[in-house]
């Protein structure tokens, strides 16, 4: 993976037949920032592709934290996140022979995990993008003027734990897009494809998620000041 150009023409193997992947437009350097190569990974992939169980376990240990964290952030439920982590790695075991190395292995695996979560939510009949959140924004999600409020910016006031807690408090539809875009680094066109919504809808949901987070984070910052 030494290319440093846009990978607009490359295809990566589809993790699930029902969710064919289109060409990715994310620069390789962006993927490597999010998914840096791991020492020993290539050798473990090659051996696991030949059916070596110990090497598959090595891959599990390399990626379990990232896959589980992704599932947990998307679902907000430990039991479901563990079930789907298990399902994602079982799917990896079935499909690893099809990995050709066109993309980073972790990119491929994480996309597979995202698809497992989305399939699960579809089976449960949950809308991946809430129409209510989309079409009827509440007062606090809509444009805000902030006239007459004190000049408080969040800059420098957020720690990781506070942000994690605020993300957990987001409505599921907002959280999904926020995690995929801002945390996992997917582009709006990829999210629109995954969630089967429009690009505009993805942008709108992300904006509302950030607006809601701003309110939550300000409330938490005020709580700290008051305490």
């Amino acid at each position, binding site marked *: 993976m030494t290319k440093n150009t846009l990978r607009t023409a490359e295809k990566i193997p589809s993790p699930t037949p029902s969710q064919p992947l289109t060409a990715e437009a994310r620069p390789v350097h962006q993927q490597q920032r999010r998914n840096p190569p791991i020492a020993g990974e290539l050798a473990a992939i090659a051996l696991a592709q030949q059916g070596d169980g110990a090497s598959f376990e090595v891959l599990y240990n390399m990626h379990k934290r990232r896959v589980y964290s992704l599932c947990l952030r998307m679902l907000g439920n430990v039991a479901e*996140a563990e079930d789907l982590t298990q399902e994602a790695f079982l799917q990896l075991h079935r499909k690893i022979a099809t990995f050709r190395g066109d993309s980073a292995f972790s990119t491929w695996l994480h996309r597979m995990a995202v698809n497992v979560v989305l399939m699960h939510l579809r089976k449960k009949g949950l809308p991946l993008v809430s129409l209510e959140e989309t079409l009827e924004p509440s007062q606090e999600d809509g444009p805000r003027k902030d006239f007459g409020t004190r000049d408080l910016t969040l*800059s420098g006031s957020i720690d*990781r734990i506070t942000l994690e807690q605020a993300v957990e408090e987001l409505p599921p539809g907002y959280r999904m897009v926020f995690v995929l875009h*801002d*945390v996992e680094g997917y582009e709006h066109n990829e999210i629109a494809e995954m969630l089967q919504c429009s690009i505009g809808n993805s*942008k709108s949901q992300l904006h509302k998620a950030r607006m809601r987070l701003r309110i939550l984070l300000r409330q938490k910052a005020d709580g700290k000041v008051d305490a």
Partner: protein
Amino acid sequence: MTSDRIHTPRECDEFQQQLPGLFDSEHGLQQHAHLRTCKNCSSLVRDLEYIAAQAKLLLPIHDPSPAVWNNIQTVLSRQAKDGNKSS
């Protein structure tokens, strides 16, 4: 830097309604004329950009319980046995 100017709520509304698209704009949100003169909207945009920047720094910190790997091993062993029987 923003120069102080009182904006009408309608001007701010119109600007904020464009925000979801402006964040992805190649022309740069900071160059938008409204932001150069509106302190409130500048503060809002700064916060939203800060939230997005902090989110990129969120690391995967949670580990699954050991039961997850145990379950995976159990399923794979069963599949291997079933495969051996059928072949």
